[in-house]
């Protein structure tokens, strides 16, 4: 097992290198630059009339001075190496867009927020989704099953940015009990987590229903019935246990998806998470931050997969055997 993990970590490092190289090449080919956008923003806000193109041209002339500060004047390969070195030594320098913050600080500040929200959303989804799925499976083809299945499908088809609007109006306008916006207090977590948990509730309930139905058809369950096990024992002791194991495999990707797939929800509720930072970094050509976020999110994804595999390894004896 240890050997397996070491091997996997080796691959993660290799994959990260490939990812960072691809991301670097792509990002360097994105048209536009941070500075040009700065000028654009400055113009839009103030006396930028269309006629002062010559003025803009002049500002463009001093680009190089500005770029030196960000290390843009050095050759590409050197920039890449600098980035990798920064990544390894955890010293990636300041972001373009948020110049008072280093990239490490941004990630250290935002990742826990996104992670907490994702974990909370998934937890809620598990708490609600599993019983729903079990209920639907046990009462297969009854009206409860149809209701739950329909609910599950509808809920998982609504993107979380639409859900966000609905929950905001439901819980802070029509039933005004929660704040729409803000951060810092526990109650600020409720709406974003709620908005983000609907999709996972749908997929977990749906997953649970099918896998429990499958499990109930298996031979060993029939054997357990035949042996005269009580209903509760058969369902919760045998079938549930075996249908929960595959659930682990969808939780990993789900969490990593939620960590970044939340740009809109973050903006709506004022959650200082990673998602907004990235889309803004991309929008304002904050190259160091774009690079760092891509690589770090890739890392999160890979670690998530590894954790899932390890958990799976310990949960499912069959895998343990086949993997020696």
């Amino acid at each position: 097992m240890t050997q397996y993990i070491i091997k996997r970590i080796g691959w993660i490092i290799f994959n990260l290198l490939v990812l960072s190289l691809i991301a670097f090449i792509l990002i360097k080919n994105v048209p536009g630059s941070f500075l040009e956008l700065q000028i654009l923003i400055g113009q839009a806000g103030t006396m930028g009339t269309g006629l002062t193109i010559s003025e803009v041209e002049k500002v463009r002339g001093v680009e190089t001075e500005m770029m030196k500060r960000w290390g843009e004047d050095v050759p590409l390969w050197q920039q890449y190496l600098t980035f990798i070195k920064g990544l390894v030594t955890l010293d990636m320098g300041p972001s373009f867009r948020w110049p008072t913050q280093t990239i490490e600080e941004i990630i250290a500040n935002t990742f826990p927020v996104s992670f907490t929200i994702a974990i909370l959303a998934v937890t809620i989804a598990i708490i609600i989704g599993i019983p729903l799925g079990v209920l639907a499976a046990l009462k297969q083809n009854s009206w409860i099953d149809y209701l739950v299945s329909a609910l599950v499908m509808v809920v998982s088809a609504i993107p979380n940015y639409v859900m966000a609007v609905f929950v905001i109006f439901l819980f802070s306008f029509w039933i005004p009990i929660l704040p729409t916006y803000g951060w810092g207090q526990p109650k600020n977590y409720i709406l974003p987590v709620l908005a983000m948990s609907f999709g996972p509730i749908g997929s977990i309930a749906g997953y649970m229903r099918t896998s429990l139905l499958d499990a109930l058809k298996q031979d060993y369950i029939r054997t357990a019935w035949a042996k005269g096990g009580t209903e509760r024992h058969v369902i919760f002791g045998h079938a549930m246990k075996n249908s929960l194991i595959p659930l682990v495999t969808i939780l990993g990707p789900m969490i990593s998806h939620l960590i970044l797939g939340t740009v809109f929800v973050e903006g709506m509720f004022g959650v200082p998470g990673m998602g907004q930072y990235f889309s803004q970094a991309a929008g304002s050509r904050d190259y160091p931050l774009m690079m760092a976020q891509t690589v770090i999110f890739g890392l999160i994804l890979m670690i998530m997969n590894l954790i899932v595999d390890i958990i799976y390894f310990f949960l499912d004896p069959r895998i343990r055997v086949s993997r020696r």
Partner: protein
Amino acid sequence: MGNKKRIGRSYWSNIWEKFKRNKLAVFGLIFVCILILLGISAPWLAPYPYDEVHYEAVWTPPCREFLAGTDQLGRDIFSRLLYSLRNAIIVGLGAQSLIVVIGLTLGLIAGFYGGKTDNILMRIVDIVYSFPSYLLNIILVLVLGRGYFSIFVAIAATGWAGMARLVRGQTLSTKSRDFVEAARASGAGNNRIMFRYILPNIIGPVIYSIFSGIPGVMLVESGLSLIGLGVRPPMPSWGLMISEGTGQFLYNPYMLLAPAGMLVLTILSFNFVAFGLRDALSARE
């Protein structure tokens, strides 16, 4: 075998029989067909061009003249919905076909030839699989510029890995089935085995995966439009219409409900078809 039994029911007609038994799935399929037809015929069905401005009628709630109301420019939301549907379908089908082409080819090659080819290809798949697809989508659209094709490419660039994995797995398991061995023993060449024996037998899961993937692609596109990277406005897209509508939910709720409802409806009907297909494919007789 009794003579009464109708013979010649192929594998596919069997699946179709099973699929037909699932009412929800059939309903979904009918709906998908209707949606695709609507999408194709949007230019003829839409009562107004998608960008025609009616000043006198801005923010009109749904009425006889404007079936789904109008937006801040008095553009007919119903027409815009039809065009959005068309875009969603173009993006969904386009990106999925690209995914299928890449994933099927590489998966088939990896699974069929095995060995080093397989190792290398699967290593690439692993790497792509661990890419943060959302971020790469954004970057790719930025690099390629906006437009259908770049959206296809951006989505397919990360989406093919799943398909390749599926096809490879299916190819591996089909390859070891006896009828493939029998064909090989009879002297059938690689191409014949791939295209006449393996491909027809893995196409079922591939079709399921296409159908179940389309909603995801549509959501990615609407997510991209939400941050201004989807299809080019004024060409409408659900993501764009939703983002216009969210700020107005309080006073013009139809502006959000109409596109969101259509998005959900489309995704649902594709999901119904996918689930029906899955059940029909997995049920053994």
